[in-house]
């Protein structure tokens, strides 16, 4: 079980900073920072810059994302913003608009 779950129906306006896994199924507007993994569920709508160890996106993210490890954009996921990560996967069926910086 993840340390923090922003469930469907919950919305946060502001900064979220964490040292544990964060699962987002609801709405978040502001900023999300964690030293652990972030999972963006299919029902989630995020308008925030996201910084995490690793990031999985199945919902909607508008904002720049940074991952120390990897970013996985899954089918049905939608990302508008720049990606900074050493590894990136974009699944068939995902939507993405932005720049990619893979630290090369």
């Amino acid at each position, binding site marked *: 079980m*993840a*340390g*923090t*779950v*922003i*469930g*469907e*129906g*919950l*919305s*946060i*306006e*502001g*900064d*979220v*900073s*964490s*040292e*544990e896994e*964060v699962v987002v*199924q*609801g709405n978040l507007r*502001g900023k999300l920072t*964690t030293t652990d993994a972030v999972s963006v569920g299919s029902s989630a709508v995020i308008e925030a810059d996201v910084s995490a160890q690793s990031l999985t996106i199945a919902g909607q993210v508008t904002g720049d994302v940074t991952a120390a490890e990897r970013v996985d954009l899954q089918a049905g996921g939608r990302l508008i913003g720049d990606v900074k990560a050493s590894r990136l996967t974009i699944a068939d069926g995902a939507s993405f608009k932005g720049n990619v910086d893979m630290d090369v």
Partner: protein
Amino acid sequence: MNGSVIGRGTVVRGNVRGSGSLEILGRVEGDVSVSGELLLGEESAVKGSVSGSHITVSGAVQGDVRGSEAVLLERGARVVGDLTAPRIGVATGALVKGLVRTDGEPVLGTPRRPATAGARPVAFPARAPAPVPAPAPKPSEPSETVEEPESEPPPLPQEKAAREAPPPPVVPALAKGAKAKKKKRED
């Protein structure tokens, strides 16, 4: 899935709103408002107003707490702010600094009493308490018997007359004196 959790290692700076239930184990600097149940865990800290249907507080809150159904402060809870709910419970070991008000429409006909042994409802005396009927004096009680028993002189003249021997009537007199002596010795 409607159960949201703000984990122990998470800090939220901003407002949290929504439907469903929420459990806060970490820190929130901002207002929290949910339509469902709200649980503030032991190590949680909220700086801002808090509202929900059924709110259980075990952590620290600096702000007003308003429950549409109930607010329960568990042992270890620390609240600096006003409490408002139709039902309010404050357990021993919980700290409150603020106005406590049981508000809203209590269900008529059901007796109000603490739901749990540890929680005790705190009623704000908005209405004047019902006049307590003065204890009616009972006429059947005989008033003469009250003063007699202790001030009775122990020696009975009849006994003295019956016995020619000098020893005094020891039993009742000694009983009184002996008690006092005994106490002194024990001290």
